[in-house]
């Protein structure tokens, strides 16, 4: 990669040496998972009292770097020193003892413990005594010191909202009084007041010399909080920047690479069709869903937006029959729906790409071919090798059209990269006479090229008359690829946007409840 200077943000070829006063030094960090390289030769440093951002697309490797810094993952090679102490054991305990605390992206709270237990127990020796009351009091003190008095220390973490759990996770990290605080996508579930709270806490910490590593892909936040930053792309350092010297476009081009692959394919115009809507639901109610009405025409790509935890996951699961739900009126492809189960939904022509591809989308031990055929096993029909042989054409068609990089249908699904795994989960529904496909954030955590391939596949689906319901946490995806976007807020439709009204600002605005119109019925 040539060294380019694009204004204040620089793409670098060789890591500069770290200054002696740096609190954290990461040198040539590399992490391999089997054949997959998640992080490749990443180096950066962080000064005391500085907020250093780690920026990149989903799947760029920033979370893996954060985990290495936090001690959750041992680097394959490379050096990390924090405050002079080398961290390479892959044990979180050692990192915490060295003064490094992390608020993890996949919240590391023990669900069955209370908030107080999660705050009071960390780092402690098992041989201490423990009293619920003492822990609750200490937790109360910590929470009120952090201005989080609305959280009940005696509540079980399981019962808290996602946003509150994230706040507790952050509180736990801050409560360790670290020299280096790592925040891995710490604002992902927080509304703007929560983000403002977070920034206040960060400034309190940097004022006393604590360094903060802020991992995020939300560029708007970085402008406010980051002093310096490192951009990662495909596991490597793509550039660095410091406060006030960069523009969003520069960062985006560093994150995305030279081809400006942030360009989204535009959705083709809606095919005119007099067929019944592929999905029509009126006042859908489920746990977490307070009355949503939607309608999707054949070939339409309907985006679902909003902050996480406001009913989007429940909406998809309810529409697929994975959770119990009821509605005043409900039909798939014109056929009425009563009690829906996933098996019945598949028979009615629906398909679903779940949130967690590893646990809900794939059987990692089984082969690529059998994973593709997962919905299509029938008890009395053939399975295994004869079935794979008879379905060879279909499978190679799917794998080819999605450009899945695999050795073949017999390779274990667990051996594929994240992007290819996601394509498997998506691909099992192709060319199978589907009417409606429900997508739960299908491009999360996969590399840029795979994302492009998925976008094209979704558009192909739309062109062939399949209706698509697409929940995405990336506003840009919704704005550019979808025909129409419905934003959920607190389990209800906050706004419906299409045409000229469909802009990123409008989506984000509706997501935080500041919609100009409230839509109960579509």
């Amino acid at each position: 990669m040539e060294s380019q200077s694009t204004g204040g943000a620089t793409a670098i070829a060789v890591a500069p040496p770290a200054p002696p006063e740096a609190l954290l030094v990461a040198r040539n960090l590399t992490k391999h998972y089997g054949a997959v390289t998640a992080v490749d030769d990443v180096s950066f440093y962080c000064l005391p009292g500085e907020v250093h951002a780690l920026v990149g697309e989903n799947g760029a490797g920033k979370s893996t770097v954060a985990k290495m810094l936090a001690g959750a993952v041992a680097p394959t090679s490379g050096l990390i020193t924090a405050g002079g102490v080398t961290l390479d054991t892959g044990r979180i305990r050692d990192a915490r003892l060295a003064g490094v605390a992390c608020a993890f992206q996949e919240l590391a709270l023990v669900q069955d413990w209370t908030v107080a237990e999660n705050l009071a127990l960390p780092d402690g020796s098992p041989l201490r005594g423990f009293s619920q009351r003492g822990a609750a009091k200490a937790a109360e003190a910590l929470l009120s010191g952090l201005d989080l008095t609305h959280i009940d220390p005696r509540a079980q973490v399981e019962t808290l909202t996602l946003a509150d759990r994230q706040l507790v996770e952050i509180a736990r990290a801050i409560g360790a009084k670290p020299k280096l605080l790592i925040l891995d996508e710490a604002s992902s579930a927080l509304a703007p007041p929560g983000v403002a709270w977070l920034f206040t806490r960060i400034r309190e910490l940097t004022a006393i010399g604590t360094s903060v590593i802020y991992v995020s892909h939300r560029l708007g936040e970085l402008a406010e909080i980051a002093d310096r930053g490192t951009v990662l792309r495909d596991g490597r350092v793509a550039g660095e920047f410091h406060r006030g010297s960069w523009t969003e476009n520069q960062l985006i081009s560093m994150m995305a690479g030279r081809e400006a692959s942030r360009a989204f394919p535009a959705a083709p115009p809606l095919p005119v069709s007099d067929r019944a809507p592929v999905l029509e639901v009126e006042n859908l109610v489920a746990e977490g869903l307070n009355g949503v009405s939607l309608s999707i025409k054949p070939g339409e790509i309907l985006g679902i937006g909003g902050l996480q935890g406001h009913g989007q996951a429940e909406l998809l699961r309810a529409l697929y029959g994975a959770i119990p739900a009821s509605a005043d009126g409900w039909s798939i492809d014109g056929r009425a729906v009563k009690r829906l189960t996933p098996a019945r939904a598949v028979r009615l022509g629906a398909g679903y790409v779940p949130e967690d591809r590893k646990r809900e989308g794939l059987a990692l031990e089984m082969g690529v071919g059998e994973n593709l055929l997962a919905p299509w096993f029938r008890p009395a029909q053939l399975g295994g090798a004869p079935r794979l042989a008879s379905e060879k054409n279909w499978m190679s068609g799917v794998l080819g059209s999605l450009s899945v990089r695999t050795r073949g249908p017999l390779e274990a699904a667990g051996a594929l990269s994240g992007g290819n795994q996601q394509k498997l989960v998506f691909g099992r529904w192709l060319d199978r006479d589907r009417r409606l496909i429900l997508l739960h954030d299908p491009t999360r955590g996969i590399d840029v090229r795979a994302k492009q391939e998925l976008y094209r596949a979704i558009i192909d689906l739309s062109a062939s008359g399949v209706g698509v319901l697409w929940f995405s946490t990336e506003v840009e995806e919704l704005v550019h690829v979808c025909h129409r976007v419905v934003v959920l807020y607190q389990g209800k439709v906050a706004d419906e946007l299409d045409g000229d009204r469909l802009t990123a600002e409008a989506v984000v605005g509706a997501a935080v409840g500041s919609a100009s119109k409230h839509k109960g019925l579509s």
Partner: protein
Amino acid sequence: MTTTSSTPATRQGPGESSTAGGTETGAPRRRGSVSRILNRMPRSAWPLLVFVLLFVIGGLIRPNLLSLDSLIGTATFAMILAIASFGQTAAVIQGGIDLSVPNTIAFSALSYLTLIGPLGPVGGFIGALLAGTLIGVVNGTIVAKLGLTPIVTTIAMNGLLFGVVLLTFKNSELTVIPQFLTDITATKIDVFGLRVAAVLPLGLALMLLLQFVLSYTGWGRSLFLVGSAPETAKLAGQPVDRIRIAGYALSSLLAAFSGIVIVGFYAQASATMGSEYLLGSVAAVLVGGASIAGGRGSMIGTLGGALVLGQVATLVAVANLGSNIQQLIYGVIVLIVIALYAKRGRD
């Protein structure tokens, strides 16, 4: 970001990799032709290899063990254990376990002997098998619909059947084994010029049939899917509950079948006739290469596991070490097997 769905048993934490690489198809890092040959063979063949090894070792210690007679003797014992373990294989593959095997065996054997009076030998046979299937359906329904763990469900069923057996059957009156049954179990028949007990080819045929179902039918493959990734199976639209219930039904059906075979071969029945098959069936299945967590296993492997355990029993008997040492060695073998398979899975 945590999912808000129904709680999975293990939630991914920060210590787990989010982009874990593969296991099976990374280029084999091991060197050496032996390892390469081993890697190429299916897992189900490994126990057969160990069996051959043990057989040869036995022959080195005591040359008269290297005889066809000794092989057939061990194989017969092993085949009975294997027949009793085929059902367990199905239960373990789908991620569960069947601890009601012992008293299903006893119940089915005693029902059979009781039913041949009114229904005749074939009628009694069908009746006992139906009873076994019903037991499995109840097990599966409780596991699938009530959500009770398989361990607790099948333990409770085991206890219940024990009580039923004690209350219903008077053992002293059940002594008549019909000729039909002896013919298909204990009677020696000619196979390729060898005189073997009929149970040997019977078991082999059963194993081939079951392995066919596991490997080549949609239901068999969906059983693996349910065991390996139950949430995925559900979200792929498979009727997980029905698959589970059928799996437990098959397990108990096979246990019932094995009960009849056992009573036919050994010509005796009692309330505790199945007790050694509680841990024995699970041991055979594990030594055969199944994963206790589900998603992996085979009938061929189970037969191989039973052969290994059987050969150990033969060696122990010949060396006059006593059944205690046999149990000890069984335990050590199972331990080695699970340690090896766990390590291989992690490479």
